[in-house]
């Protein structure tokens, strides 16, 4: 009854038929607890990406559920990735390739998409959203109809201990890595966690869908001093090949964020940033632990499906770049765990098959018996929760700008850019993706095989509501490349080491 009223506020036609489902007994429906993490790559214990990382709580979750070790985001940027994931539609079908403030998209363009929490709400779930579930400015999109409760939290006047971190001069927000001296209560992700803890302490009659969007380890790496103190230098440098960009086509090269590497190399700050990143992940782990402890103590522990994902990965120097916005492993690969306490055969195992986060939508619907809107992309991963060794035929796809797609199978990565240029990596033989095999004709058969998975049709780029647009693609082939070349010249003109080699 309640759900029908909510649907009335929601104008999409598609919602009418999917929303009318019989009211299901609250006890039978599992709750959903979804951790949405920002910019977290494989530097977590359960993926083994960095030897010094400390993530006992997420490791515990991974060891209970199915740990998808080869999961890839729909897009390597917060906005396109989350739009795909929450709406359940890939960028090449929605046209939402770069960043958007979706509140500013003109009417009729995305109205037919059904945000995942709203679907749950319309199916009898009590929905609670905390901070960054969607890309920040999109929070308010359908906020009132999507969430029974929603709150967003920020840091409170954090005092930075600059001498213990890196604070670039001139200031670049994305490069700040400093501990804060404030008490824990002042840090937003602690607030986010405590919101969830309070929620779990309360009694709920309806099944709930609780989504917690943590901000860290997104830049700036500002977390409590306590978390920084757990990481002592030297911080191990990830594998970096100085001339890594040489065998990559210009469309790919231009994804390297050289302008941030200039101050970092100048100041010798790489180690401080990596330390800040590890500290930020560790802080998130503390907060995941707080929520999991609260869940364990609550009456919901045995009936709450836990999902943890990150919107995409993060480069810390690998392939000569920093942050995300690329189609290489560091940016596309993310942590991804599903734990269903009701007993899945796969619990406690890891799934090494290549899977896309795009599948979260259908999977959660499948696990809760909710009918999926027809437009939704992806597949349900429930067979893999039962048997993580099951072979996955279709590679996971990541899109970055119209025309730029990378396909990741268990063994290969094949990338095709808007201008037809390509990359091919053997992930088993070359996990660092150092050797582009695309121009070696002996691998043509592999490329041919992957080509069939490339999109057959491409939605035009949605032109209203555009926010950040920082990629060379079919709609803007020149701008980003020029800016990249310009930054490479600046980098090399300064004589920074190691030099940047491009074709």
């Amino acid at each position: 009854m309640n759900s029908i009223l909510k649907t009335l506020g929601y104008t999409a036609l598609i919602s009418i038929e999917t929303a009318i489902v019989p009211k299901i007994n609250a006890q039978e429906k599992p709750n959903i607890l979804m951790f949405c993490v920002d910019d977290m790559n494989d530097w977590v214990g359960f993926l083994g990406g960095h030897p010094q990382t400390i993530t006992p709580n997420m490791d515990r979750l991974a060891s209970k559920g199915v740990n998808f070790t080869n999961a890839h985001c729909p897009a390597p940027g917060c906005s396109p990735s989350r739009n795909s994931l929450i709406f359940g539609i890939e960028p090449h079908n929605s046209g939402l390739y770069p960043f958007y403030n979706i509140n500013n998209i003109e009417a009729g363009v995305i109205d037919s998409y059904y945000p995942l929490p709203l679907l749950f709400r319309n199916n009898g779930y009590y929905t609670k959203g905390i901070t960054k579930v969607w890309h920040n400015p999109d929070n308010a999109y359908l906020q009132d109809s999507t969430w029974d409760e929603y709150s967003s939290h920020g840091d409170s006047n954090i005092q930075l201990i600059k001498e213990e971190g890196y604070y670039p001069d001139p200031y670049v927000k994305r490069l700040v890595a400093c501990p804060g001296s404030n008490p824990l209560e002042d840090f937003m992700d602690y607030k986010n966690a405590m919101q969830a803890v309070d929620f779990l302490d309360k009694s709920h009659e309806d099944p709930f869908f609780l989504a917690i969007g943590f901000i860290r380890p997104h830049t700036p790496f500002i977390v409590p001093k306590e978390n920084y103190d757990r990481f002592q230098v030297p911080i191990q440098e990830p594998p970096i090949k100085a001339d890594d960009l040489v065998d990559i086509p210009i469309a790919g090269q231009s994804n390297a964020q050289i302008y941030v590497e200039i101050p970092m190399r100048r100041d010798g700050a790489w180690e401080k940033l990596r330390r800040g990143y590890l500290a930020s992940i560790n802080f998130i782990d503390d907060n995941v632990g707080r929520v999991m402890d609260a869940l364990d103590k609550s009456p919901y522990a045995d009936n709450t499906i836990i999902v943890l994902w990150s919107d995409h990965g993060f480069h810390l120097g690998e392939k000569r770049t920093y942050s995300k916005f690329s189609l290489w492993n560091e940016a596309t690969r993310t942590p991804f765990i599903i734990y269903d306490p009701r007993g899945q055969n796969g619990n406690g195992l890891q799934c090494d098959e290549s899977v896309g986060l795009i599948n979260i939508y259908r999977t959660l619907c499948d696990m809760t018996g909710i009918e999926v809107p027809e437009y939704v992309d992806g597949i349900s991963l429930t067979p893999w929760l039962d048997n993580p060794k099951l072979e996955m035929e279709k590679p996971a796809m990541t899109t970055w700008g119209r025309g730029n797609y990378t396909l990741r199978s268990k063994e290969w990565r094949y990338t095709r850019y808007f201008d037809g240029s390509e990359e091919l990596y053997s992930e088993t033989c070359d996990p660092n993706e150092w050797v582009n095999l695309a121009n070696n004709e002996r691998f043509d058969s592999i490329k041919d095989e992957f080509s069939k998975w490339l999109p057959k049709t491409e939605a035009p780029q949605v032109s209203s509501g555009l926010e950040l647009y920082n990629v060379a693609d079919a709609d803007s082939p020149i701008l980003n490349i020029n800016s990249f070349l310009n930054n490479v010249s600046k980098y090399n003109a300064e004589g920074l080491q190691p030099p940047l080699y491009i074709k």
Partner: protein
Amino acid sequence: MKKFLLKAIAVSFTSSLFAQNDKPNVLFIAIDDMRPELNCYGESQIISPNMDRLANEGITFTRAYCQQALCGPSRLSLMTGMHPDGIGNYGMNSSNKIEWRDYRPGVTSLPEQFRNNGYYAEGFGKIYDNRLGIDEGYSWDKFTQGWKGAYSSPRAQEILATADSLIAIGEEPDIIRPAVDFWDTTDETYTDGSNTKLAVEFLQNYIKDEPFFLAVGFSKPHLPFVAPKKYWDLYDRNSIKLPQYANVAPGFTEYTLSPYKEIESYISRSIIDEDKTKELRHGYYACISYVDAQIGKILQALEDKGELQNTIIVLWGDHGFKLGDFGEWAKATNLEIDTRVPFIIRFPKKSMAGTKIATPIELTDIMPTLCDFANIETPSNAEGKSLLPLLCDQNAELRPFALTQYPRNGMAYSIRTQKWRYTEYVDKNTFETREQELYLIRDEILMEEENVEDLYPEEVARLSKMLHDYLETAPRWDGPAIPY
């Protein structure tokens, strides 16, 4: 009686000549796959000033032979003083790594005996072949393998990734992994330089009262031939010589060469032309110069510590290697080029500096020699002979021959006298003769030029009898061999 007396005098003279007041330290240097193509062996291709210095200050054994031309068995034989038949080991297996000690608990190894007699023993790198175990806790108070991987350069990484990717799709690459590589980098980038740094630090920081037994095992010039660029730059590729005997010698049997084509796990033999041969040899030489530079650092550290004159230094190789000789790129035969090894001893007070001894000796002789010199009882499992009598009288009758063996066509035993190399293939159980080879080895060539078995039947008979007389009483492990 007269002979006995002479011998007794000789021994006491030797003892006084090499008398030690204190227990000497031992510096034990092992080199992998290095044939004795050094200046101190009368050659001129290789730049190795530090090994040459050792030879000038010590004694060079120009006819030293390993007991099996393969890393694992050769080293285990040397370290226990037992022939492969005695310890019962003929190979190793990287997919079945074991600790040899589990199979031979009653055997005492060389460093173990030194530990039993008040020494502190520590090792770095490759002394035993780790596929047979490193024996830490028995042979060593502490052992660090320090393996840094075979390759580091970006070029090598690219070749590897491309080759592996081709294999993954069922294609055959010409280069499976690089057989050679150079990179403008520090010595410490690779295993040997890195272990040398650790050994130097060991010497600098050593404060124990006990004398030390320091073992440093270099992994080069084993394939792949990888060394920092500066060692490659010591050589002019054009002046690198091609092998003198690049073809099979007349009379080789089907068993003379090994079916083990080591180079083929790196590159296809079809791409080894003259240029590639020179490149490979260049790499081998560069690796030796690289190892030599590391030896220099250790000698310097020993000198800086003030212990050079109180340390006996032993340098040995586990077997030789064919660099295109007889058309092969491997060891694993009973041929002179695979069995003959570098072996230099520098005594603390540089006794008999610069001496060259041409009597055929075995690596099993190292254990009794070092024990003898340090006034330590030689373990009862040792089969070799102390070399100290030879130092006094180079014609002293130490042994009738040096023995090498390889499990092939039954068991192939090869004996080396001053003049001959005689190889006989026998049934492992009955010792029944299956095949015989005889080579007259000229001192100036030190290669098998022709199998003259048919021309010298009396020699064949004499040497065969000598071998069979030996085999009848030779120590032989009567249980199962150490698995490999």
